[in-house]
């Protein structure tokens, strides 16, 4: 159906402009020579000096490295737990504890982060009092906290993918005598692999980006990249952060572009295979 009226399309364009102007302004001003960030220093710009400054900023590089390691472990842990929870919720029908599990996997998505952060820190402190572990807060407690809030998102992604497929394939394999592990490896896993992949990427991004929960469960010497950025920008704009933002936007954009092209290619190849198979059957 064709849209009547121009109101909605115009709002769409304005909304997209609204979404992208801040990002574009960061990119533009990352090449600005002036320290004043938003005042364009025409004669001396564009310049790469903030990128050079960034490459020499040990604090930011160290924090980025810590954030990457935490995000890698957190995303992987969250994928394992989230896949288990998603399978249980999508495939097991009603079981004891189902309502509890369903509630605990959706609540973290909307829960205000300050509350999650506070409760996790108080938990870790109480745990240390009780059993002497974890010894203080740091990378370990950050990772445990990240796994917990990231797995909720993975659960939702995996669950909706599994619900989209009916269970008949798995049932057929069972009827043909496949063992549960075989069914999972041969049928369920390939079906949900795209969901697992996007769940992992989502979890990685959420962990890499999280500030509020991390601030609660981080200790001295375990400052992640968002914590370093926050302490810098809290007291005003700094040009090297613009450069950092530009690099991150470029990485994400090229990653998405590559995956889109790759998916198009696979789709085309699949269509061609189907056509070839159909032709062979004629």
């Amino acid at each position: 159906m064709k849209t009547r009226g121009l109101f909605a399309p115009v709002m769409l364009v304005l909304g997209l402009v609204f979404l992208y102007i801040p990002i574009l302004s960061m990119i533009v001003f990352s090449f600005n020579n002036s320290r004043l960030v938003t005042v364009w220093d025409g004669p001396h710009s564009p310049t790469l000096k903030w990128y050079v400054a960034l490459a020499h900023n040990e604090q930011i590089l160290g924090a980025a490295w810590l954030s990457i390691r935490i995000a890698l472990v957190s995303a992987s842990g969250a994928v394992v737990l989230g896949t288990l929870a998603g399978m249980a919720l999508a495939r097991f029908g009603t079981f004891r504890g189902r309502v509890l599990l369903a509630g605990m996997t959706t609540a973290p998505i909307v829960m205000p982060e300050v509350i999650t952060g506070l409760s996790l820190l108080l938990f870790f402190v109480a745990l240390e009092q009780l059993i002497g572990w974890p010894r203080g807060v740091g990378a370990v407690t950050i990772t445990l906290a990240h796994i917990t809030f990231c797995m909720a998102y993975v659960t939702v992604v995996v669950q909706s993918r599994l619900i989209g497929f009916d269970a008949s394939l798995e049932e057929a394999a069972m009827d043909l005598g496949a063992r549960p592990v075989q069914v999972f490896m041969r049928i369920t896993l390939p079906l949900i692999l795209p969901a697992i992949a996007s769940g992992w990427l989502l979890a990685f991004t959420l962990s890499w980006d999280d500030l509020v929960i991390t601030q609660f469960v981080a200790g001295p010497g375990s400052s992640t990249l968002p914590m370093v950025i926050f302490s810098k920008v809290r007291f005003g704009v700094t040009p090297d952060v613009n450069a950092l933002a530009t690099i991150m936007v470029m990485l994400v954009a090229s990653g998405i572009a590559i995956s889109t092209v790759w998916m198009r290619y696979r789709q085309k190849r699949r269509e061609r295979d189907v056509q070839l198979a159909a032709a062979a059957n004629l």
Partner: protein
Amino acid sequence: MRFTPAGGRRLIAGIPTVWLLLLFLVPFLIVFRISFSEVRLAIPPYTPLITWHHGSPQFEVHGSAYSFLFTDPLYISSYLYSLKVAAVSTLFCLLIGYPMAYAIARSGAAWRSLLLMLIVLPFWTSFLLRVYAWIGLLKNNGVINNVLLYLGVIHHPLALLQTDFAVYIGIVYSYLPFMILPLYSNLEKLDVTLLEAAADLGARPLRAFLRITLPQSFAGIVAGSLLVFIPAVGEYVIPTLLGRTDQLMIGRVLSDEFFENRDWPVASAVAILVLMILVIPIMLFQRMERRELEASK
């Protein structure tokens, strides 16, 4: 469906359940329990729940953290201010997001995936950095003021940063995708033959919209609004970077009580009261989420 033998099933459901019980539910019980303690100079800095007097346990329950919250007007005004900011931001998200979702749902298939990608793309880049970008746009010698001065619209820079306006912009900007996506998935399923029938029967577009489109997308409106409202009440980063310094939101108050005043019982009591306000919206959201998943079966 019998998917795996009982033992395997118990393990698959059991592992994530135990993890979340330990790291999601138990932590809340601890917050609840500490909110009934008093602050003291020790490690940990709150009074224990049980003390032993001559071999018999004595329970110590203090309500002082809560009575403190209700006697100091700072806390009550922060609660009300947070609810107001979250409500106004949710409304603006809806007013901007609805036509956007509608336009995407009504566009051709080729455009649709591109437009959806453009909506989701900012979400993959750092939230913190996108909020930070607004400082550069809104401040006194920022981009917006410079452009307006250059065009001669204004003669003195407007104070945009550290205002309610800046917080609304920040929240609407950050949470807009969360409003658009549920609305889109609802509007996409809209039965267009109903609209055509209404048009054939002589209904004008506005009337058809109010009587058909709007009621049918009600579930999307509720889901999107809850996804924006609930986290916005406890928002910390946006008001800290863009907002007023004379009126704090409750998420900031909680964080300050904990980090600046080191008053764990009061910080816990603040968290419990926020949860009590949000428990109904959160349960509503969970019910909608469950229905949505069951409907897609």
